């Protein structure tokens, strides 16, 4: 009985992984078949990196403060792009299903909503690595600045921003599922609403007192403060990391719950067959 149960669970897991892989493959096929899409992944991170690289060079020759931490602005830009790309990786992939009017086919197949979510997160990771990785590597020969000098903390920062990007992406995908492509612009613009209170280029203390709690409620502020501590003081602040991880767990669960609830509502309202351009 136990063996049968374990075999059944094993079969289900294998089938589930197969379905997740099928959806990942669907986006890989899309990327592979279109060089402009491939280029687009790396285009904006590289443009950002070039602009902020020159600004950094200017500051390094004109400001003692910035000179203390070579590459702080560039690191901030690249890490911010991790968040932006991760969010786009989820919401744009979902939007592509709406453009293709493919949701009906997907959800009438054995694919479960949570499997679609896992596939979207996986493809987001791939797109983020492709985009930001290219820019980060180009920064080394161009400005002799390597974000990889952050060492192991970089992995922690990258992961925290990636996961928060996923959470925002899931909320945007839920809005797309509920309101259709009318809210398409949110996919591109919404993350910038969080930028001023994410302490990307300046510490949280720069913000007015009343706004600081909002900043500390985002994992991004903890990540960027942590990044500055590493670059300025050479210290990795575990408290900041733990705060970011805790907040990320909360936001990821919230994002997944909102997506799941919206999916159930879409099934009640008959939206899965009507979605399209």
């Amino acid at each position, binding site marked *: 009985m136990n063996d049968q149960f374990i075999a059944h669970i094993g079969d289900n897991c294998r*089938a589930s992984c*197969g*379905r997740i*892989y*099928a*959806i990942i*493959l*669907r986006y890989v*096929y*899309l990327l592979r*078949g*279109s060089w402009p899409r491939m280029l687009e992944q790396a285009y904006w991170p590289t443009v950002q990196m070039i602009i902020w690289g020159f600004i950094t060079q200017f500051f390094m020759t004109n400001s003692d403060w910035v000179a203390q931490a070579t590459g702080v602005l560039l690191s901030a830009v690249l890490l911010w792009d991790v968040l932006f790309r991760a969010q786009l990786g989820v919401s744009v992939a979902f939007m*592509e*299903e709406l*453009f*293709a*009017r*493919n*949701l*009906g*086919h*997907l*959800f*009438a*197949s*054995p*694919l*479960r909503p949570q499997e679609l979510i896992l596939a979207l997160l996986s493809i987001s990771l791939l797109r983020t690595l492709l985009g930001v990785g290219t820019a980060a590597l180009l920064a080394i020969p161009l400005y002799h600045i390597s974000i990889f000098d952050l060492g192991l903390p970089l992995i922690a920062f990258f992961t925290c921003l990636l996961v928060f990007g996923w959470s925002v992406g899931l909320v945007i995908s839920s809005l797309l599922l509920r309101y259709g492509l009318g809210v398409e612009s949110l996919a591109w613009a919404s993350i910038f609403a969080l930028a001023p209170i994410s302490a990307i280029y300046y510490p949280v203390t720069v913000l007015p007192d009343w706004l600081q709690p909002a900043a500390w409620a985002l994992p991004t502020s903890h990540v960027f403060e942590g990044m500055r501590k590493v670059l300025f003081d050479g210290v990795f602040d575990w408290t900041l990391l733990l705060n970011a991880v805790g907040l990320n767990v909360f936001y990821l669960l919230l994002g997944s719950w909102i997506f799941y609830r919206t999916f*159930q509502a879409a*099934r*009640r*309202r*008959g939206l*899965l*067959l*009507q979605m*399209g351009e």
Partner: protein
Amino acid sequence: MTAAAIKVEQLSKHYGAVEALAGIDFTVPRGSVCGLLGANGAGKTTTIAILLGLLTPSSGRVHILGEDFLAHRYRVLPRMNFSSPYVDLPQRLTIEENLDVYARLYGVRQRRQRLAELFESLDLQAFRRRAYATLSAGQKTRVALAKALVNEPDLLLLDEPTASLDPDTADRMRRYLKNYQAATGASILFASHNMAEVERICDQVLIMRAGRIVDRDAPAALIARHGRANLEEVFLDVVRNTGRHARSEEVSRHE
């Protein structure tokens, strides 16, 4: 005893005050082809969407291939498939890529072999490496049918499967479906506005009007009972509530 392919009881769907389905009952026996007819807005697509798990009903029971579909749809979905003009496939993927993705989603074991069979039998070999977006409407319909058959389903739900096909291709598709059904014993629910097609291919017909099933029988029996020459005339009587159908409704109202 083998359970019916589809057994629907008291199925209803409301959108606020709008009644899209008003407590319909029907059974599709295993191995049969059942036509679902009705004017636009009669409730055909709503019915099919519920049978696919894309729409939750307001009330009622649905059993598919012996399973309680509303409670355990993921047990049955791998054994079903569908095609509908309301959904499409990713435009930029090639035919082969599209079918490969769906074969994986449905857990098809011999993928390459199955795709090769479909390319051959649905005459898609020449397009397999072309992007879906570049195909004509008729070619897209054939690809949609290939996707619907990729997992060799026991139950096939087809919403206007031969729309936009030329008569020759449509005829070949019908023969293909009939052969598939005969070879596999699959059951097919077939929504169409092409009455001649329904008359030829279906064992049983359900006619819907305003969210209700207002008539049902074998095509020949319907034609005989309504005293008409073909199914199209029967359909017009039923949806317009004229002819013998109107008289029988009048009688049942007075009873």
